[in-house]
């Protein structure tokens, strides 16, 4: 550069004066500030979204149902879990599109794959394992480059920076199971956190779960429409003798999906959100009470049968409520 500049650096070396330049500073400032404002405008025209840090959320165990647990899992999947950063539909995804696929079905295929080296035997265990030890089974073509699909780029979700707790991972599993109509097999959290105990009084939040069938019936206002436990109301069919008309499963269905069968002579007025509001224990207690109505209580065989059925129902309650 320099040689040619030296050779041809032909400046007009005389001290020839130029016409006075006016307002250079103003023009330069105006141009510079104007250009800056153009960039500012572009930034302000784009979608304005704030990225909130994860906020602690108190779960009301009293109002927790499998569906609401799955809904919580969906929130975690989209939010704190940051799953959707990578798990997107092709061609954008950097990981399998698990939202677009039935994970329970896929899990069964992968468990049968000879490349699978893990210890899971069920879809639930497989999903959990893939979250906390992602490299145990890497889906073909999704491994870290050069690792021959033996190392997954996915972070362990129970470690920093994601730090999902056991309950949160279960919620995500519930979501992945529920979104494709599969049974929710994970256990709902049962221990009430300390903060939660203070919540109703302190914050006016949801009431505590009912401890008995009578309490649950009172909590959900069943007696406002139905004749039950000594109360009388003509709005809905009486429930004092419901055990004569319906079996356990039908009673449960009437609570969770009241529009499925409408009793003759009555309007379709019953609330449809008990599936979301009612806890599994509350539902079981109410069903137990109604299925064992006084009219049948003298039949000892029947009582035993109900009792054993209740146990079975409790064991499989999550599944039933999910259905």
């Amino acid at each position, binding site marked *: *550069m*320099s*040689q*040619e*500049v*030296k*050779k*041809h*650096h*032909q*400046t*007009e*070396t005389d*001290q*020839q*004066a*130029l016409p*006075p*330049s006016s307002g*250079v*500073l103003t023009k*330069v*400032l105006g*141009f*510079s*500030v104007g*250009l*800056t*404002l153009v*960039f*500012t405008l*572009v*930034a*302000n*025209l*784009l*979608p*304005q*979204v*704030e*990225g*909130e*840090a994860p906020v602690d959320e108190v779960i009301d165990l009293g109002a927790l149902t499998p569906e609401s647990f799955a809904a919580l899992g969906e929130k975690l999947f989209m939010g704190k879990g*940051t799953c959707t*950063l*990578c798990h997107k539909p*092709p*061609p*954008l995804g*950097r990981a399998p599109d698990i939202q677009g696929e039935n994970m329970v079905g896929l899990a069964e295929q992968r468990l049968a794959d000879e490349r699978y080296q893990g210890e899971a035997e069920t879809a639930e265990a497989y999903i959990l394992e893939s979250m906390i030890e992602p490299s145990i089974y890497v889906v073909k*073509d*999704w491994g870290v*480059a050069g690792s021959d699909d033996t190392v997954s*780029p*996915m*972070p362990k979700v129970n*470690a*920093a*920076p*994601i730090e999902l707790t056991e309950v949160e991972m279960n919620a995500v599993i519930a979501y992945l199971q529920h979104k494709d109509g599969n049974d929710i097999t994970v256990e709902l959290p049962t221990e009430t956190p300390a903060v939660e105990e203070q919540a109703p009084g302190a914050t006016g939040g949801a009431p505590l779960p009912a401890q008995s069938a009578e309490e649950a019936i009172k909590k959900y206002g069943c007696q406002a429409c139905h004749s039950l436990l000594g109360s009388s109301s003509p709005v809905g069919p009486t429930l004092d003798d419901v055990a004569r008309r319906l079996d356990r499963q039908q009673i449960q269905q009437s609570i969770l999906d009241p529009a499925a069968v409408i009793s003759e002579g009555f309007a379709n007025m019953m609330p449809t959100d008990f599936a979301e509001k009612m806890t599994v224990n509350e539902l079981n207690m109410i069903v137990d009470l109604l299925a064992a109505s006084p009219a049948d209580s003298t039949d000892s065989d029947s009582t035993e049968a109900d009792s054993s059925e209740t146990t079975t129902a409790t064991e499989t309650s999550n599944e039933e409520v999910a259905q």
Partner: protein
Amino acid sequence: MLHKRLNSLQLLPKMRLQKLLNIMLVAVLFLGASSLVSNLFIGDVYADSVAQRIQSVGSILLEGEPQPEPVVVEAVETEPAPAPQGAPKLKREDYPRVGASSRSVVWIAAQMHLFFAAFVLAVPLFVLVIEWIGIKYADDRYDDMAHEFMKITMTAYSITALLGGFLAFSLFLLYPQVMEYMMRVFNLQVLVYAGLFFAESALLYIYYYSWDALRYGNKKWLHLTVGLGLNVAGTTLLVVANAWVTFMMAPSGVDATGAVVGNIWEIIKGPLWNPINLHRFIANIAFGGAIVGAYAGYKFLSAKTVEMRAHYDWMGYTANFIAILAFLPLPFAGYWLMAEIYAYSQQMGITAMGGILAWLFIVQAVLIGTILLAGNYYLWAGMSRTEGSKRYAWMIKYIAMVLVACFLVWVTPHTLILSADEIKQLGGSHHKLLGPLGIMPAKNIAVNLMLIFTFLSFQLYRRADKIATVPYANFLNALMVVIYVVAIANVIFAGVYYGYFTNTVYKVGSSVMQVATTLVVIASGIIIDTFLFKKADMIPAVWGRVSNRSQYALFALPIAFTWLMALMGYVRSSVRTHWHVYTVMKDNSPDNFVPSIGYAGNMMTIVTILFLGMVLFIFWIASLSETKQSKPLAQQELEA
């Protein structure tokens, strides 16, 4: 004897005595400082050795008396070493409140400090090269220009230090626990930083103020050596400070709780340290070149004589040359940095490129597009300096068309901003035609083509005042055309094939191929032109013969660079999301959210305008030193 010595002392010339006293004074100061350092830093070792010496003197025995039995001191069971202390877990109430957003205060302080620091670290780098060119070609104009660049830097250096103090105080005031943790991790390394700062200050002042005293002969080489020392200190300062930010992004040398488990080298050398070092080093040069280019542009526009105009035209061209030359490899350093971020944490990479921060890359495209368009426009306008440029004038419109088309592809968002009705009409938020242009493969094609065509503009500019005379000129020209055609085809093919017809994970790999292609074009262009224009006939070029309008490109560059630095610094910092130190120390402050793009953009504008104001102040100070008040008329008459 003493008398004799005194006599000999009296014989010493006065100057030599003065020098002797000076040396003694320095020696005394050095010894004093050494003992101070010994006491401060190696106090325990020193104390032990003193204790042993005192004990040995105290053991006095009488002759004939038996030696006392040695006292056996039972070994005291040492206490177990304390467990390593992890990073503090802060609650919201742990953060001091000052009535304003702490993050905004630190944001402004940090960004202003970084702007000036980048400038004062970069300018001496290319000043040293310009000074060396001046020596090699025995051309004083280079030396004068280098000196003038340094003059601007001197005021900026003081402001850098002031802003550094402001930043440090802000951090210790507003985030004391974070700073306590960082000090605990980096420990004595921060004192090394302080020491380097002293060294850099000393070398900077010596370098600038000895410019005329060490101007010719061997002394000039001494001056260059001081300049080299200045740049070594400055660059080391940069990489030492970089370790702090890369530790916060990708901590190393600590366990999952943040407790220090490695040595200082393991802490410094995290996975992102070298990529950031390279990226900042190159970006600083581009930034520094752009700022001094603006200085030259300002002086050009306000020049009062033709000579001044020619001088500042040349200065502006050189500064622009430096800025664009440093800018061209910058995207490749950026690729490396992002690839390392993805390798460290795919989640972090996607947060930047595909998550909440992704929209910021549209703004980045606007900024880089502005830089490339302004840089190209300046080159095209500069071709008017020589009549030889007419041979290439017809190509400019095609280059402009390619640049604009690529720019439009680059700013095309993947997800369009639409109303509900528009989404319904479109059948989704992704337009069938424009949607594919919104993703990275299309943008990689666009940016590489923009770089290739910018290099073409530069090559045409350089060829404008030359006529090749070598016999193989036609062959070399044809070879250059073939290289361009093949390179353009390869950039498009790699982007389309790997970007749209293979798995997502191969996209980054394809960009490496594109980058390599662009680099091949640049390297082969320089080599071919070197051979092509050996003993070339030169067409006269007149410095100063450019339009005033062209000088505004020299202002567009630093404005866009400044905004771009603010933007990318924000992205780099925000990928940590709600972590002070990623995965180790959570940010639970009221400002732990990623703000909206509009808010961030407003912050960037505030810092850019503040910086612009301070830079104008520096320009004013630099010209103030050249201004001389004329003698009062009465005094002139008296002297006459």
